[in-house]
């Protein structure tokens, strides 16, 4: 079975500070990992993915994520937060040979000026 957890419902950071949104997953084979962002009244938008290769993945809008197999984590990071980064962030996992992904419950990121 595949599962993913986002342990923080809410993350608050000041503009210009680094941000981290956490994601952990359960192990059952080789995972494909994704981050999506959702703005109010919109669908989810893809940010970045890890399939294989380098553990540090760079994505859209200056976001990056680090795949850590030993800790089964895939935390989303950005060196310097912007107020416009405020949104709902979802981590998702799919294992090989699975036809579908499992999404976390989401983390609301608020960046204050």
């Amino acid at each position: 079975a595949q599962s993913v957890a986002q342990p923080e419902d809410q993350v608050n950071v000041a503009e210009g500070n680094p941000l981290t949104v956490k994601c952990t997953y359960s192990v059952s084979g080789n995972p494909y990992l994704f981050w999506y962002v959702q703005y109010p009244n919109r669908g989810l938008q893809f940010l970045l993915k890890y399939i294989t290769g380098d553990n540090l993945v760079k994505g859209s809008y200056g976001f990056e994520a680090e795949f850590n197999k030993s800790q089964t984590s895939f935390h989303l990071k950005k060196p310097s937060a912007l107020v416009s980064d405020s949104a709902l962030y979802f981590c998702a996992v799919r294992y090989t040979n699975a036809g579908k992904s499992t999404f976390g419950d989401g983390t609301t990121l608020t960046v204050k000026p």
Partner: protein
Amino acid sequence: NAGVTQTPKFRILKIGQSMTLQCTQDMNHNYMYWYRQDPGMGLKLIYYSVGAGITDKGEVPNGYNVSRSTTEDFPLRLELAAPSQTSVYFCASSRESNQPQHFGDGTRLSIL
């Protein structure tokens, strides 16, 4: 490109009514998905399809039906609407299951 288009954007139904939520994509994607998103919760998969003519149940399929007669369209049917089906419904598609999903902007459904 339009991407994934969902109609209607909003709808209010009475208990026991039926309706179809429409979803179409113009990216020639094989995989399509229906999710519901309840307040404060993540996405729950209702049904998905790996190609025309093939559908499979997700986590919460009860009360819903789907069909996939073409690559482009993946309608979701509610036969007997219940208050528990009040939610925001998202359709998504991907080229393959290990590729990112493209989402529509959702249908906000209230059942009273």
